[in-house]
Structures are given as structure tokens and as C-alpha cells.
């Protein structure tokens, strides 16, 4: 994921932020867990709702599953 960050709109970067934290949970479940995201624009400050966070978590899980599927030792 070194190359995944690019300047982009918030909407496109949210999955990257969520995935990074959730990967932290995957590697260190006793020390890192849960997800909280706050977004800041010139117009508004808001925290993502539980539904939005659940959607991001689901996206991460799908991505994780897809990566596992293409790994050569899983076929």
C-alpha cells in the first residue's frame, strides 16, 4: 500500500484510512481495536456514523478476502 496514497478527495481516501486502522487491529488485536473517523472540511466537521463505519469495515473485509483469494498458496 506504499503507493496507494495520492492526493484525492475525502471520499476516495476514507477506505484507505479505515483499512489502515483495521489492519492495525488485525495485527495487534489486544492493543488496537475499533474504528473512529472524523472528517474536516472548510464547511463542516463531522464524525462518521456507525453505519458509515460499518460500511468501511465491510469494504476492508471484502478487500482482505479478495487479496487472500489471489495469493498463490491459497489456490
Amino acid at each position: 500500500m506504499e503507493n496507494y496514497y495520492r492526493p484525492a478527495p475525502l471520499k476516495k481516501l476514507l477506505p484507505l484510512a479505515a483499512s489502515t486502522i483495521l489492519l492495525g487491529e488485525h495485527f495487534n488485536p489486544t492493543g488496537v481495536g475499533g474504528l473512529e473517523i472524523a472528517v474536516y472540511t472548510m464547511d463542516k466537521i463531522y464524525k462518521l456514523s456507525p453505519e458509515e463505519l460499518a460500511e468501511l469495515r465491510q469494504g476492508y473485509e471484502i478487500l482482505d478476502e479478495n487479496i487472500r483469494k489471489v495469493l498463490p498458496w491459497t489456490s
Partner: protein
Amino acid sequence: MLNKSQCQWLIAEEVPVTFQVGIVATDGVILASDTRLTNTTGIRTLSTTDKIICLDNPRMAYCWCGDLLQGNAAELFAVSSKDTILESTEIRTQLYQAGSRCIHQIYGDGPMQPASQRPLHTGGAALIAYIGKISVELWRLDITHFAVACPVRDKTSVGDALNPGIFLWKITIGQLH
């Protein structure tokens, strides 16, 4: 605010084991954090908490890892910049002053005194999203025995030193800021 008599709070085992990222987008800033709180006072317990604090005046938000010192410094910055919108140079100065003031409250005039005489301060960092006059800015305040404030132009992460999550960021997203 912390003072010397309260330094027993700064015990590494009692602070959140935290992993947080700040990302600069073209139209704003993202702060993301885990929500786990590890407490080993008495029985080791895990609980869930909000680690990102949003404020209306000044319009900013912050989160931190490490012990309470970083959070206190961010809070002090918020108090000192109330009712005003700071320029970037002022943000740097005020963050530095807030961090330095908190360090001074812990160490006094001798931050480099021998470790055995030092109160235990684990070090850490705070991420601050600040809504300025022109754009939203992401700042990072690192506090060890001194304070360093710098603006972040792309992405950064903070985490407790013993947290493998911080190493994860290195191998996935990129270099630490």
C-alpha cells in the same frame, strides 16, 4: 493540567495502546483512530472510548497517542487559540509553546536530567486538524523531552512505541512523518 505531584499518572502500562492516522485530502482532512483503551490499574481491562476530540471554538479536532501529556498539550493549544483563527506560523508557535509548557510542568528546568530522577513520560504525539482561514490544516505535535510541531502535507501516523500497528503503517502506507 499535569503537575509534578501528578506524575504518577504517567505510567506506560496505563495509557491507551493506540494507532491513529491523519490523511490530507484535496478537500479536507481525515483523522482516523482505533477506539481501544487498555488499563492495567488493578485488573487489566480493555474498554472502548472516543479518542478523537472535536471542538467548535477553535474549529479543530485532535487525537493523541502516548501518555496524557500530548492530550494536555493539544488542549492547551485549543484554549490558547480560542476566539481566533491562526495563521500557519502562529499555529506552529502556539503548538510548540503548548508542548513546551506541558513538558516544563513535568520536568521543570531539567528535561535532560538523568533518567533515574526523571518522572516517567513515555513520549508520544498528537494529530491536530485545524480549520484555518483558507484551508483545513493537519499538524503533528511530537513530545519527548522537547516539543516539535510540523504541518503534514500528505499523511502521517502516530502510535504507542510498543504498538506493532505503527510498524504496520511503515510497511503499508509509507514513511513515518
